[in-house]
């Protein structure tokens, strides 16, 4: 037997997987080849070491936690058996409620846009009148320059194009125009969130305090005093934001986020209800479980 074959056979020899003739051949080879014997001894040692590693005990409370999840599963399958249920056993009524909520949001937004449109037109005419008699510093140039890059409705940016930097400064001092400046900053904020989504949520962003106001990990604990805060109550709030609900049980609910804007609004919403802590370890998951803990 040559060294190459011997090396291939070492593992099988250790496990007693060789037939009698191969076994005798490798034994003969190991006796005369010091290098191969050394390799055999090393591999054998690894196998022994691995065998000694032993087993860890399952963490305390494992079965209890599993039981809770199993009961939730049972409930879901019962409920979805009653209602309409897809091939995958998914929770169709939640989708329908979500879609209805989305539709409501769209209708509302269209109405709001109509109102905004009127307001912007008013603002533009005011801007123009302000431009006629203004002279001032150019302190807000930076923010002014960034505004047009953002994906904002045409009429808004058009409004800004009419105004020069110094006029924006002036707008700040006028309450009615101040409002339109704020709108501009809001749009900017959304642009930033969008960038975050593109690059994924990285730990660098986690340490950035300015961007810390959103849900980052896959598990969020919400400590509340109010006994009325339950997953089912929270659901109605969540549906407003068109966030997918994957799972609900007695003290938690699992959501699926599509963008960071949803993480931000929900974080804000949760903060109003109690103390929020991001306790998950998975920062890349779209699925987030909100665990509600009632303080006694």
């Amino acid at each position, binding site marked *: 037997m040559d060294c190459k074959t011997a090396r291939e056979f070492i593992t099988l020899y250790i496990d007693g997987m060789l037939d009698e003739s191969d076994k005798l051949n490798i034994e003969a080879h190991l006796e005369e080849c010091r290098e191969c014997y050394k390799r055999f001894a090393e591999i054998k040692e690894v196998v022994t070491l691995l065998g000694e*590693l032993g087993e860890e005990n399952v963490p305390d409370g494992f079965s209890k936690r599993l039981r809770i999840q199993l009961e939730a*599963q049972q409930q879901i399958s019962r409920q979805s058996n009653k209602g309409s249920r897809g091939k995958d056993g998914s929770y169709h009524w939640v989708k329908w409620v979500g879609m209805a909520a989305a539709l409501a949001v769209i209708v509302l937004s269209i109405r709001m846009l109509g109102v905004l449109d009127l307001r912007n037109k008013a603002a533009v005419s005011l801007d123009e009148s302000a431009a006629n008699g203004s002279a001032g510093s150019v302190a807000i140039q930076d923010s002014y320059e960034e505004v047009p890059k953002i994906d904002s409705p045409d009429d808004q940016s058009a409004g800004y194009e009419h105004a020069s930097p110094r006029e924006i400064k002036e707008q700040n001092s006028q309450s009615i125009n101040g409002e339109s400046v704020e709108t501009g900053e809001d749009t900017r904020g959304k642009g930033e969130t969008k960038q975050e989504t593109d690059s994924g949520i990285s730990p660098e962003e986690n340490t950035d305090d300015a961007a810390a106001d959103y849900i980052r990990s896959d598990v969020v604990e919400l400590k509340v005093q109010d006994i009325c805060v339950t997953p089912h109550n929270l659901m109605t709030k969540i549906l407003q934001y068109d966030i997918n609900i994957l799972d609900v049980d007695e003290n938690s609910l699992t959501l699926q986020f599509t963008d960071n804007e949803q993480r931000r609004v929900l974080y804000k919403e949760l903060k109003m209800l109690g103390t929020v802590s991001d306790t998950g370890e998975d920062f890349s998951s779209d699925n987030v479980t909100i665990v509600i803990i009632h303080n006694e």
Partner: protein
Amino acid sequence: MDQEALFIEKAKAGNISAFEELISLYEKKIYNYCYRMTNNREDAEDLTQDVFIKVYRNLKNFKGNSKFSTWIYRIAYNACVDKHRKKKKIQFFSLDSGNHDNTGNTQLVSNNPLPEDEIIQKERYKKIQECIANLKPKYKTVIILRDIQNYSYEEIAEILQMPLGTVKSHISRARAALSDALKGTL
């Protein structure tokens, strides 16, 4: 075995207690498998919970063509590989975090005067755990199943749904890689 079939039938009908009986034999095995695959106890618990939930949900699809144990392990393997892929995306953040217990050596020596041999042995276990953690999932899984959990080559082939020849070469390569890695560290 007959009892297992009975529990499976009851669990398929939604009986949670029967399901718990059914998996009680596998809890520790699957937890340890996940722990060795991830080298992280919290991840291991999450994964084990996920695995059993998946088993519960998909039990109606289990037709008994393979052994129940093999089927559970296959689900566990897939869950661990999924986790590995997700973790890889944020590797620069969490690579081996919590495993590099740099203060371990000094504490061990000063607080706990163990015989020298024992210290060396503990170091070796720690090292080999790190080495396992650095293997690719396909090598890691055969090492765990074969050398830590004592499954036969045939059972591993069934779990991973690969030819026996592939299992043999994977085990051989994985052991060689571990041996080399261990030599590099000790």
